[in-house]
């Protein structure tokens, strides 16, 4: 298993500290996905919540630049 470099560990801690200090009611926002996308480079970063029993989406969030619009209900 790969071990995190000192730089990665510092970036991770910095990300967590910033997310903690935001005091927001929703964690997964487009802005947070931009931040997390700086830790792990990707063309698309998204977060989803699904009601597994009823097989229906509850929340879907992506970075603003990844899609034209977010979908959330």
């Amino acid at each position: 298993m790969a071990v995190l470099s000192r730089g990665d560990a510092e970036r991770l801690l910095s990300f967590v500290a910033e997310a903690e200090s935001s005091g927001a009611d929703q964690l997964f926002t487009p802005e947070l996905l931009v931040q997390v996308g700086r830790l792990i480079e990707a063309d698309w970063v998204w977060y989803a919540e699904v009601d597994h029993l009823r097989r229906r989406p509850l929340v879907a969030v992506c970075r603003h630049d990844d899609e034209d619009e977010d979908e959330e209900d």
Partner: protein
Amino acid sequence: MADEHPVCTRLHSGKHRALKLSDFVSLRELRSSRIYDLWFSRIGVERMLAVGIPSAMWHKRHLVFERGKGGDFTERDRALLNQLLPHLEHLWQAARTRRLLRASLAELDDIDEHYARGVVVRGTADDIEFASPPAVRLLREFFPPTTGGRLPRELVDWLDAGSANSLTRRRGDRLLTVAQVSDTLVLEEQKEDAKLTARESDILFWVARGKTNAEIAQLLWLAPSTVRKHLENVYAKLGVSTRTAAVARLFGISDAEAS
């Protein structure tokens, strides 16, 4: 189609470690699969790294990173996501708690200040983090002069002494009881039965039914000025200044409910 997705099926089965698409299929295998034609090729995704965030069995939460044509996610990316996972879980729970608390506090904010029960959330030392409108009124009326944003000295002393028993404070015929529940103080006002005369009770009975002074005067064979005088006495005894508040006080409900 999710049933054919190699990562989705693992995430839905409750795996809470970072998974790569390439853990299950090579790029060559992916490109020759049915789901590639149906899904991946259409959205231009060939690389995927995803993690399931722990939650109730019915409620699945995923954080997903995708790439088009190009290099796969590395083991460094996977290790970083695995390290991030417990923090995401903690942060999500904290955000959820904040959401619930804000909703509860908003509900408390909507309560009319004449309601007989209020709550105070303590901050550090003797600071008040939050006080519902009835609590603000009760502190103002039972602990004058109150300093905005700080608990009255008497309450601080009671808390410092351990607050094992409820604190009571009397003001006229009104009794305030303060109890501590964790970091919250619950203030409850009780009122001894106002000693209204039979005539005053009769008049208040009709006031509660929406009658005007003139109508009450007709019903009780009194002069309107006599009704008004009786009502002034009722106001004084109940410590209110309006007929709505008088009815509310008598029945122990808020003005908003009475009107």
